[in-house]
């Protein structure tokens, strides 16, 4: 598994952030596939291969989750993922603009694996993707999944 680029699923309603993260991934020369969904509902649809994603939704190796999203927000989506025995092994990294302590506490309470505040500069975003890549995608040993 090591060295093999895993799929990253990004749940983010802001198109600018989706673009910036995509570019940061490229800038960091990371070969990971980035799949984007725009809200919590779509995230769950993807994971359960429903609606728009019925049939063609490969299981991600990492979920990057924004907290503030329309329809179903990141907190509710996080709760649903961590309550589902078939999904709860997927690491979820909360990536948000909020620095509020209660958001940090609540996210970890709900089972988030990391809580990261969105970097301000593009360079630090690139650095973040690099660190995320090396940590979650190379260093950490994750259970093998049938869906892969």
């Amino acid at each position, binding site marked *: 598994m090591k060295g093999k680029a895993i799929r990253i699923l990004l749940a983010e309603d802001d198109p600018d952030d989706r673009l910036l993260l995509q570019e940061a991934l490229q800038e960091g020369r990371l070969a990971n596939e980035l799949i984007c969904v725009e809200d919590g509902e779509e995230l769950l649809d993807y994971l359960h291969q429903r609606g728009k994603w019925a049939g063609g939704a490969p299981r991600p190796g990492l979920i990057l989750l924004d907290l503030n999203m329309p329809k179903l927000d990141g907190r509710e989506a996080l709760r649903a993922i961590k309550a589902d025995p078939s999904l709860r092994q997927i690491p979820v990294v909360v990536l948000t603009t909020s620095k509020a302590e209660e958001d940090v506490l609540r996210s970890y309470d709900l089972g988030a694996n990391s809580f990261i505040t969105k970097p*301000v500069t593009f360079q630090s975003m690139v650095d973040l993707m690099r660190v995320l890549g090396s940590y979650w995608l190379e260093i950490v040993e994750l259970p093998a999944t049938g869906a892969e």
Partner: protein
Amino acid sequence: MRHRLAHLSIPRQLTAITMATCSAALLLACAAFVLHDVVSFRRLLVRQVSTLAEIVGANSGAAILAGDAAAARRNLAALAAERDLHWAAFYTADGRLLAHWARPGAGPAGVPAAPPPPGHRFAGGALRLARPVVVGGERVGTVALESGLSEIRSRVGRYAGIAALVLAAASLAALLISSRLQRLISEPILSLVQTAKAVSERKDFSVRAEPEGSDELGLLVTAFNDMLEQIERRESALTRSLERLRRAQESLVERTREVERANRELGRSNRELEEFAAVASHDLQEPLRKITAFGDRLQGHAAELDEKGRDYLERMRNAAGRMQGLIEDLLAYSRVTTRARPFEPVDLAAVVEEVLSDLELRIEKSGAAVAVEALPTLDADASQMHQLFQNLLANALKFQRPGEAPAIRVSAEVVDGRWESGSGIGAAPVCRVQVEDNGIGFDEKYLDRLFKPFQRLHGQSAYEGTGIGLAICSKIADRHGGSITASSRPGEGSRFVVTLPLHHAVVGEAA
């Protein structure tokens, strides 16, 4: 007397006094009568016996003169009719017992052998009397008689009986009369007592004793009533002023409540304003982050721009960076109250040590010498204390004089002081912390501006910063019921003094 009577009621006392007085007077009167009677009866007895002696003496003068004892004895025997007479005797002129008569069975004191001295004498319950017998102007002998006093005794006995009867009757009469008359005195007193009892038991000052007569008791009752009236007046005046006081207190409480309401309202709108600032600056951050990020991306294409374009891009990115700083500071400023933590004992020495380790790089770079003296432990929000010293020490490092290494001194003293905060006003020990430096200093006319948010004394190019640091310090000191001030002269370093109460009434609760 007073002591023994005190347990009796007033009517009984009065009756007892009257009875005692009457009895004493009657006893005295009876005794005087009896005495007088005894004395006058004795006189009468003496006269009677004396007359007997004179008669028998005159009748027997010749017989005595002749020494005819038998004749003399006959004469004496004639006296036997006098029932009280014990004996009678004749003595010759030379003192010899000539003849005598004695009642058989009479007293043991027999007839004396020698004549008793002339005159009379009461002795041994009997009257003994001696008279000279004179014939033709010449004393020829002596006649002596002794009479018993049984008559006197029976008279005295009768008198005593009568006196006892009179005494009993008089006492009865006195009892009846006094038990009626004592009411004249006791009734007003009893009525006074009733009134006093009613007043003390029911606290009813409107009752009055019934006034009777114009004597001392009447005066007493009137005076007592006057007193009650005064008390009643004062009582009602007191009640009225108590009522006024109560109303004043109520209105004070009401005013306090209003002030508290207004305070709460003010606190609420303050909080709302701060929350608004927090939310607004958070939301402002979002697009700014994009400006910064895309500015960074554009920088990657800088080569495709001309000189002017690159300059514009650089200025834009600088401005975005400054705005980011401003927003972060604004958030930090509003967090002093919106992210306030409860007070707990905080060791300032440990806080300063942490801050110095955070600033280690800058201290090394500037070659600063930092001297930290003994610092106390006080009730505070630990993270805010950290921020306070972080800002003060960072300033001391930042505003250094060109070409001179900063010398910073942190010291503290504990003094008695007055402090005011939301939780009240108190006189309690306060801690005065000083942070002194040898930096560029400032003109004290700017002191007011120094602690206001976003007020700067220097241009961006000289010393960077948004001007929020000291405003945050001031807000933190304020939240801790303390204050901050500074003294300085341009070019001569500055001294910042933070005054904080050592203790808070309720530790573990945000003030």
